[in-house]
């Protein structure tokens, strides 16, 4: 048996994503806090933006989780080793 290079590459990708995924999930937290504090922009137009921002933040967090899961699945689907003759 020998090490599966694709598995190794996928694990490296998994690690890179893992390192950054929290930043992605939190990317819209800063803008949302600013809008919630009401120190930057208030009014009906700001309310619409703030609401939209909330939906996008939820979508972003969902997408980040999905992406992470998809890469985990890709890693799991790949055997760690290959027969010598492959």
């Amino acid at each position, binding site marked *: 048996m020998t090490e599966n290079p694709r598995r190794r590459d996928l694990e490296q990708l998994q690690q890179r994503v893992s390192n950054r995924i929290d930043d*992605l999930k939190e990317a819209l937290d*800063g803008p949302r806090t600013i809008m919630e504090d009401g*120190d*930057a922009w208030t009014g009906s137009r700001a309310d619409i933006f703030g609401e939209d921002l909330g939906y996008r933040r939820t979508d972003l967090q969902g997408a*980040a989780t*999905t992406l992470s899961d*998809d890469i985990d699945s*890709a890693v799991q689907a790949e055997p760690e080793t290959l027969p010598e003759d492959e």
Partner: protein
Amino acid sequence: MTYSSVSVEGLEDLVSKMQTAMMTIDSFTGQLGYSSIKNDMDDLGVTSEAMRTLRLIQDWIHDDELPSLRRRLNLARGLQQKSPNATMLTLDEALVDAMSSEEAEQRGRELAEAFNELGGVNEGFGDLMEDFEELAYDPDAMAGFYAELGPELAAMFAGTLGYPGNNAGDDSQRYLELMSIGLGTALMDETRPGDWYDMNEFFQETDNPVAAWGRLALLQYGDFSDSQFFVQMTVERTALDAFTQDDWADPYSNISAQNLYPHEHHMNVDLPANIAEMAFLTLGKHPEASRQALSGYEDFPLSSFVDRVYEAADYPHDRYELADAFGLAIESGVGAEGDPPRTEHTEEEAAFAFEFINASAGHDEVPYQIKDSLGRIGASYVHEMVAGSYVDDGELPGDRNSSMTDAPNDFPEGVGLEPSFYLSPEITYQFLGSFQDELYLSEPYDNAMGLLLSEQLDAAIQADQAGEGDGNRTQQVMELFGGASQLHYLARREYAADFDAQEEQRRAGVAQFYSSGMAIIPVPGAGHYLYWGFQVVANDKLSDWVSGGPGMEDQVVSENANAEAMRWYMTVQAMIENGVGEDAVPNAPAGLFEDGELKPMDEIFADEQLRQDFYDWVNENPELNGPSDDAQSGWNDGAHGVDTYIGATR
């Protein structure tokens, strides 16, 4: 109509965080062409539906929200100029919808083309300025306008508006102000177009006085608070580089010595004609630029500027107004704005003030036109003036130099004074002396001394009463102020144009002020009376100092009190007001207190029996008598130390 409430700072933060969010998402999607997780996934043949969602969110930020947020921020910056102190601004959302940043920039460019076609302040200029006024607070539009117009024409239009006989006539001032506001607005646009950087030609020297004057005029009225580098570079290259040269006084070869027009009184704008004067006036409005420009020349330090300006104001140059404008530049750089001038400073302001005060104090002859600025600088650095007046026992002139960091030996720390630096007594004496010609020149300083003395005395009495430290803070504070007051008095005596007349004015002021029953606590604008009240030095009755005049017969204080008694009364009153000896108050002789308050000085000194009762009562109560006597000793010790020291120098 839809209105929003916005803050510039908040929107700046929001825009910044939205940009960061977009870049974070892009590090996954790679839509902007940088390496990304998506590239890595493609290489490995991995797919995820999530990428589609991420791209949609990125597009929403990049295409939909950031442009309108940036536009909203830019419009808010324009509005902030009209309401500089407002934290939240009201913004009409229709303005955000009316034009995108690109459309606003295009409108600015079209207007600049119309200026260009007109070729000068000619017939029709007024109509163009009406259009300009509509856009003057729109950073996108103004960045487009100035980028398109270019530096040469911008300066020439401004210069022409200053020139007598131009077609704008009485509107010249208003148009010039608008063009300056517009330039300040343009600099607020963070996403200025690429050709904007042609405007950096302002950072190159010019030998054309109209262009030089025009550049500096464009910096007079707008808000350049976040564009100090632009101001600094323009002022240096346009005028100060030339002013530092050996031919500085030659109008034929040196641009800084030239004027826009030979007869300033004919000019139809409220600005001087001289280029160097315009440069200093500009720095007077821009503190950071002032410090950087006036202390940034390696071979021409701030002291050289002082030497040159003082020389220019003297015979045979007689450029008095240059000293006036230079004084404003220094006031700005040291942070002496406000009424009363601000007394807390940044390290940069204090370092600049230290350099200037030492340089100016080295001159025996100081131009009269800068003396009002010197008085305000003294007022702004009143903590440092008091500290600089401190003389250690046994200290002789020359024993120490001014220092940014080192306190004199045995300097009383922790008594409330917070100097940013320590001047030598000689420098303090000479600097104070340089604005004593007339009483009004020193009034800001005298006011600041009154306020500081009152504040420090109250704090010291309270600290002593609370049992803090050694319990002698009041005495130490009085020693510091006794020294400072005496040094000031001696400087006034040496440098006043007419010392006797000044003394008469001061004493009459003190006598009138306290005769009218005014309290010890200084009221705004009258702090100098308190200071003068403490400062009076002769032991004669105040009436002996005042030669008479209308209303003098009503001045009961002047008729009945002497200086020592007055200072003693004021100290005791400050103690009582701060709760010292409060147990003794119920047993005070009848008539000394009214509604729990010690009667004013004029009433006590007008009645010999009451005055005697007051004196006896204080002496019978050790908690009042001891500290007040110690305070008097402190004051006298401080004054005596200075007398000895200054005597040794003369």
